Structure formats: C-alpha cells, structure tokens
C-alpha cells in the first residue's frame, strides 16, 4: 500500500534482515528478521529501517516543544498533562519565577496552559518538563485544540511551510506542540479558518497535493471574510 510516495506497513510485516540492515524506531527484531511494530510509513535511511507511526499517542522526546495543561499544583512542583501516556512533572526550579514554599498555585493553577519543553525522560518513563527558556511561557487567550500527534509533521510542513501558509492567510498566531496540541490566537474568523485548514490536513494527511488544496481553501476563506 503506498500513498504520497511512501509505503505504509502494518504490525508484524517483515521489513528486512539483520544481515543487511539495522532495526530503527518502530521496528523490532526476531530471529534475525526486522518487523514493523506499528502501522506507519516505511522509512529507510542508509541501512537503518524505521517505521514512522500514523497513529498512536505522543511519545515524549527531550527537546520537544509541548503545550501542556496543568493538572495539579503541589508544594514543590506541578503535574502537567502533555497528551502523553504519562503526566509530566514541572519542578519549581524549572520555572523563571522565584517561588516561595507552598506558593505554587499563585503562579500556575489547574487548567492553566503552558508552552514548555521536554527536559528529561528516564527509563521508567518519568517525564520532566521545563519553562526555563525565553521561548517558553504561560499561554493566555486564544483557543486550543488537540490533534493526533502523528499528524503534527504534516501540519507544520516541510521547513514549516504548511503552518506558515496558515498563519499568513488567517493572520493568526499559532503554536504547534509536538504533542499534538495546537494554540491559535487571532480574530474569530481567522481562528475558524485556521481550524478548518487544520482539520482538512488531519483528514487528508496521507494524500498527494495537499499543500495546494490547503492554499486554495485558505485563499477562498480569506476572500469570504473581506
């Protein structure tokens, strides 16, 4: 099965041999053969065989920018939902504010949204995130939606081309978290048009010529507004 020039493989599908290739992400080895463990795109780079998943929850990687929602404030940290299998811990030492003991709720409360970075993922998948960076902050205003984490690359596009297109025509500020959470701010029609474009990308992510179709849609919506 092939779409967009890339082949789709399913779990248990044989992809290669350890004699000639190495097992990359999304694959496992059994008796010298390499198999896919997910439904995804086959991606061979040199002698490494990877499968890029089409479905599945966000897999946190250190360095990823993520949009998180605060679940709980404790005395020296917050637990944050980053749309991963596990909640992430944000320690008081990882925020740009001086926090007195027990004052965590004064700064971040349940339901607050933050743009953070994944700091660390240990062997038992305990996650830590940080706000200690000029580019990271508590998000206010606008709207927030969840998309499938696997669709994020398509929404961002090659070198950010797709998201730049959407920002241009809708005149919205948009942050796309690697974790499949997207924040949009602008005037109401702009937000609506941006959402339409994003939904279209999600449904048609696997097809050819998507960038052109999105541009058509955005042009048309922008005209309708004026």
């Amino acid at each position, binding site marked *: 099965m092939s779409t967009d020039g890339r082949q789709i493989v399913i779990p248990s599908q044989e992809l290669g041999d350890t004699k000639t290739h190495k097992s990359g992400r999304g694959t496992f080895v059994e008796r010298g053969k390499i198999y896919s463990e997910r439904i995804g795109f086959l991606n061979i780079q040199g002698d490494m065989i990877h499968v890029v998943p089409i479905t599945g929850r966000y897999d946190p990687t250190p360095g990823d920018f993520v949009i998180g*929602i*605060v*679940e709980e404030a404790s005395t020296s940290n917050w637990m944050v*939902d980053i749309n991963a299998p596990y909640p992430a811990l944000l320690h008081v030492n990882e925020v740009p504010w001086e926090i007195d003991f027990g004052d965590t709720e004064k700064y971040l409360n*349940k*339901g*607050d*949204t933050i743009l953070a970075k994944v700091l660390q993922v240990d062997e038992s998948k305990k996650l830590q995130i940080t706000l200690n960076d000029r580019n990271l902050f508590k*998000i*206010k*205003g*606008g*709207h*927030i939606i969840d998309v499938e984490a696997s669709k994020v690359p398509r929404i961002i596009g090659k070198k950010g081309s797709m998201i730049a297109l959407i920002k241009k025509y809708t005149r919205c500020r948009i942050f796309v978290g690697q974790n499949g959470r997207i*924040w949009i701010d602008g005037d*109401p029609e702009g937000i*609506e048009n941006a959402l339409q474009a994003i939904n279209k990308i999600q449904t048609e992510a696997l097809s050819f010529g998507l960038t052109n179709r999105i541009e058509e849609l955005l042009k048309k919506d922008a005209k309708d507004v004026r």
Partner: protein
Amino acid sequence: MTVVPAIKRDYITKLAEQGKRIDGRNFDHYRKIEIETGIVNKAEGSARVHIGNTQVLVGIKMDVGEPFPDSPNMGVLSTAAELVPLASPDFESGPPREDAIELARVVDRGVRESKVVEVEKLVITPGEKVWVLFIDIHILDYDGNLFDAASLGALAALSTTIVPAKRFELGEDYPLPMIEPPISCTAVKINNVVLFDPCYDEEVIADVRLTVATDYNGDIRAMQKGLNGSLTKEEIQKVIKGALDNGQEIRKKLMHSIGKKNV
C-alpha cells in the same frame, strides 16, 4: 478525569457572548441526528442513535413476571443505563454511579409518566402474570447530550419492539402497543447563554443543564435540571420554547425512521 484547559473554557464562553459556538451552530440547533432500528437480533426491539459524534444503543428485552403489588393490572417497566468505559476515557468500570442512575431514571420517567407504552395492555393474568419490559441504554461514544440520545433511542427501540408472545406460548408475536411519544430536548447554560444539544466541550464547562420533554400537543411532560448552577424564569422559558421547536423536528425524524425499520 481529563482537565479542561481554562483557555478552551474562555474561548467557548467568549464565542457564546458573541452569538457563536465552536462548531459553528446556532444556539438552538441540533447536530446531525441519525436513527437506525432493528440493530440487535437478540433484542425484542433496538435502536442506535447518533447525535453528532455521540452514539447510543438502546435494547428492549421482554420477559414474563409478577406485577408490582400496588399495580396488579399493569405491565412492569424497568430502565437501566450503562456508561461503559468503551465510550469515553473518563468512564470507569464498576456499578452504575450517579450519572448513569440519573440518566436511566430520567429516560424511565419520560417513558412511564407519558404512558407512551400502554402498560395496561401488557397484562397476561391480572394480579399474577404480566409482561416485564427492560429498557437498557448502552452508551457507545460520548460527545455530549446523552439525555436526548438515550431518550430518542429508547423511543425508537420501543416503537419497533415485537412482543415475543410465541416464545412464551402466549399466542402470536405482536407489536408493542404504543402512543405517540413526547420528545426530550436538552440545553445547557454557559455564562447566561442558553445552548441546545451541547457537545462534550460545551457540556463539561456548562453551569447548568435543563431537559424538557414536550408532546405533539405542545404540552410539557417532563423536566430535569442538572449540575450545580441556577436558572432564571426567562431562561427556563427559553429552553421550553427551544424544546417545543426542536421537539417537533425530532419527532418527525423519529416517525420517519420507525416507518423504515430494519426488521
């Protein structure tokens, strides 16, 4: 439980104050409603209802049993609802909790008090043997407004139920005797704005919910307020009006779908 981001809550509220909803609907409009009957072979009657992405399956089973002591000449009605974990990441397995019980009781009253099912006709031997009718609501996909989906499902299932007389050696099978039903419509209030047929995002941030069932004469047959907010008299009137208008439309849909059953 999934935490609702304050941003989303604020956005939905702001939109409402500007006369809009996140899915672009009018305040008093419903999402697409689909009703299919005759879905479950083992059931005496069944219906699957979609309201937008919300999906509910209602099955009717009948048995022969004793009447309640205080109503010896009436059949027995029993309604249960299962908010199974399949339908939402927030539903847990275990015995029905208050949400499931409230849902079942509201649907039950809607059927019972409106006398939609002619229970006097479900007597086999007065005082001894009657038909027992079980309405079982199975939620399959939760995206708001379970009350209307479940009520509609129950009515559609009942309207296409065949009494299994043959199996109990009580004669030939026959359609369950029913009269034209009242239709239940639910609205929520978000910051003083009344919205009909709330989707999940709207329902979780709503202050208060009101369900009103109206019949083909334009009379009110049942009401239920939920959640811990309050309502003004005007708001209640608004919901009643919307329930009457939407009720008529939905009743047409229901009658149409019963005419085209799968059996």
